């Protein structure tokens, strides 16, 4: 992935690391022993985070929080909300200037109100230096190019991979999962013929519909915008992506245009579909809910398209501190503590790959190679692009995602039988309106 300001970012990171070294910030390992950011006297923190998708996430997060309170004396209250409700709740806090000190939000949330958020550059530098640096997606979703600072601390992503049934793929004539999109289309046709069709959401499903449509768009070289934020969606690459999606959608199970984010999980667990795209929860829950067919479940990194690089779209999560917080240092220290090795190692390991950390060092954890079905989720961030690619991450891209512009463009072709060129033109008009007003 190329960013217009990547060189500048590296310069700033190096400068930040140097400054941190000069001011005596503790090195890796010593960080857990003494606070890097000294909590304010009498500090107490409120965190609002998304409800855990896997139980071990909540359990270990809470245990690590207790360790933080024991080490610093700072009590932390944690509240949870459904992941879809985090954006509105954070927006409300930004608007009224009151609420939790820290919110763990999704994707471009921090770019909607960057002026209201505490500068996180020092925590980002500290953790990045200690843990092998950040994946590019971290900067895409947490560094605001308008206010020119890190407005959020990258946490990681609930990565996406393709999920399939091994025996049905074999039955369709494939000993292993195809490595390219043409092969995957042939597989999809084989699965459909054998009564095990693929299923990819085409309704307003925030996670599932956005993930696969963006993957296909980028795989063919389609882009929402150019680096100067001029609209680039109406291109031959987009048309090729839409034509491919149309052919693929002819193999889908009926009803995908009405699917929400839980539909493919139910259909896969129920044996209605043989191929879909999802986070690791679909596999993880299968172990518990459908043990009889679980050995047949498998996960794989989505194949490359003509651009010959992986083009995965994930749900990225980050934590931001509001300026109204009376305890910004305590909040920073809490987040630093939670993402530091002694805590994060166990958190990531126990979740068995549900969250792929944005810090590169955690890719070395043994959990990622303990089962070949977990490994694709380790690589989710290494090969990911970002919302609004190849434009400037920010408000406009956030609004385009909220309005399902890319999903609806694909649905126009696959469901409403619009021509690919007309659908691209329609999306271009929508994007021009959104980018103009943002």
């Amino acid at each position, binding site marked *: 992935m190329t960013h217009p300001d990547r060189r500048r970012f590296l310069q700033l990171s190096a400068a930040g690391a140097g400054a941190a070294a000069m001011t005596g910030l503790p090195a890796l390992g010593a960080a857990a022993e003494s606070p890097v950011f000294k909590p304010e006297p009498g500090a107490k923190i409120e965190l609002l985070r998304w409800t855990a998708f896997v139980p071990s996430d909540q359990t270990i997060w809470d245990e690590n929080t207790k360790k933080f309170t024991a080490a610093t004396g700072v009590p932390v209250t944690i509240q949870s909300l459904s992941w879809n409700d985090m*954006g*509105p709740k954070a*927006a*409300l806090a*930004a*608007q009224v*200037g009151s609420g939790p000190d820290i919110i763990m939000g999704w994707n471009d949330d921090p770019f*909607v*109100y960057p*002026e*209201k958020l505490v500068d996180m550059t020092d925590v980002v530098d500290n953790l990045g230096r200690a843990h092998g640096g950040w994946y590019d997606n971290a900067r895409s979703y947490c560094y605001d190019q308008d206010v020119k600072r890190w407005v959020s601390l990258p946490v990681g992503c609930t990565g996406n991979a393709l999920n399939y049934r091994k025996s049905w793929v074999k039955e369709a004539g494939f000993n292993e999962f195809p490595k390219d999109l043409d092969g995957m289309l042939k597989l999809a046709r084989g699965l459909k013929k054998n009564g095990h069709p693929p299923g990819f959401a*085409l*309704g*307003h*499903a*925030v996670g599932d519909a956005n993930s696969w449509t963006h993957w296909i768009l980028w795989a063919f070289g389609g882009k929402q915008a150019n680096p100067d934020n001029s609209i680039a969606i109406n291109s031959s690459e987009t048309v090729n992506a839409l034509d491919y999606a149309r052919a693929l959608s002819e193999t889908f*199970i*009926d*009803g*995908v*245009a*009405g*699917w*929400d984010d839980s*539909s493919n999980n*139910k*259909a896969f667990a*129920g044996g*209605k579909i043989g191929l879909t795209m999802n986070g690791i929860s679909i596999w993880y829950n299968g172990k518990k809910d459908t043990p009889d067919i679980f050995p047949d479940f498998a996960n794989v990194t989505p194949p490359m398209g003509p651009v010959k690089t992986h083009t995965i779209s994930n749900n990225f999560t980050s934590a931001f501190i509001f300026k109204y917080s009376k305890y910004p240092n305590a909040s920073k220290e809490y987040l630093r503590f939670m993402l530091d090795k002694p805590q994060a190692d166990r958190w990531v390991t126990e979740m068995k790959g549900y969250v792929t950390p944005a810090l590169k060092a955690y890719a070395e954890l043994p959990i990622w190679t303990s089962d070949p079905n977990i490994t694709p989720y380790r690589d989710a961030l290494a090969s990911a692009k970002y919302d609004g690619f190849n434009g400037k991450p920010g*408000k406009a891209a*956030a*609004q385009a995602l*909220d*309005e*399902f512009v890319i999903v*609806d463009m694909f*649905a*126009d072709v696959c*469901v*409403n039988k619009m021509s690919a060129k007309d659908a691209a033109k329609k999306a271009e*008009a*929508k994007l021009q*309106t959104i980018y103009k*007003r*943002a």
Partner: protein
Amino acid sequence: MTSRSPLLARLDSPRVLGYLLITPAAIILLGLLAYPLLLGIWLSLTSATIGNPGAFVGLQNYATIFADPTFRGAAFFSVFYTVCAEVGKLVLGLALALLLNQRFGGYRISRALMLLPWVAPTVLSALAWLWLLDPQYSALSWVLVQLHLIHGNVDFLGSGWGARFSVIVVNIWRGLPYFAIGYLAGLQSISKDLYEAAAIDGANAWQAFRRITWPLLLPITTILVAFSSIFTLTDFQLIWTITHGGPTDATQVFTTLAYQRAISGGQLGEGAAIAVSPIVFMVVLAVFVVRSVREK
């Protein structure tokens, strides 16, 4: 004899006492209804975004939304949704009320059960309908398949019009008790003497309904339709829970689009303009109701 204080003497005036008594209610109404409404109108005239008060931009937000095909689609479906749902609720609500107005075994329990869709929390009933309309696991489809009426599941939400009619049906189901209970109250207030006189004159059931029941139910019909139309035009929870405005914005209405633009997208000014725009329809309905009530 002691003289009364001038203050107490003034309270003897019905005008003074009257205004004094309605003051608390007026303050509550102004604070909870008028202020948010005026704030919404003001926001619609600004470039406010979340956390930023913005600047006065006149009618620019309205010009933007009226030029936006997504808004025009949402306006169309809001009106279509309201008209279809009101017609459905009126016809079925009246039929249900006529049925429940009869004395039959278990009529009391039937009247109570009828209210269930109205008293159940909207989001819970919307979730239940989401499962009923599921393309793979719909209980409705299962029943129809078992009865050999169809061969495969119905894709209720998978096409634009399928999704539109599905949410209209859900709204009718939810609002039906409001009409039925209103009509039931209306029916019970009609004097039986009128029906006896009509029977003596040889009127059949249809003639009695057309010449007695319907004309006497007209005042309550006006009120039921007007209030229900306002609730339906501003419906959010049912549609947001079931379709999120999809597929391809087919079920987008004023409220869902306003929420998407203002809260998720942070464009408070434009979102407020979308939310304010149906007020024109609602004012017309409110004036209609007030005038009808006065005339009757």
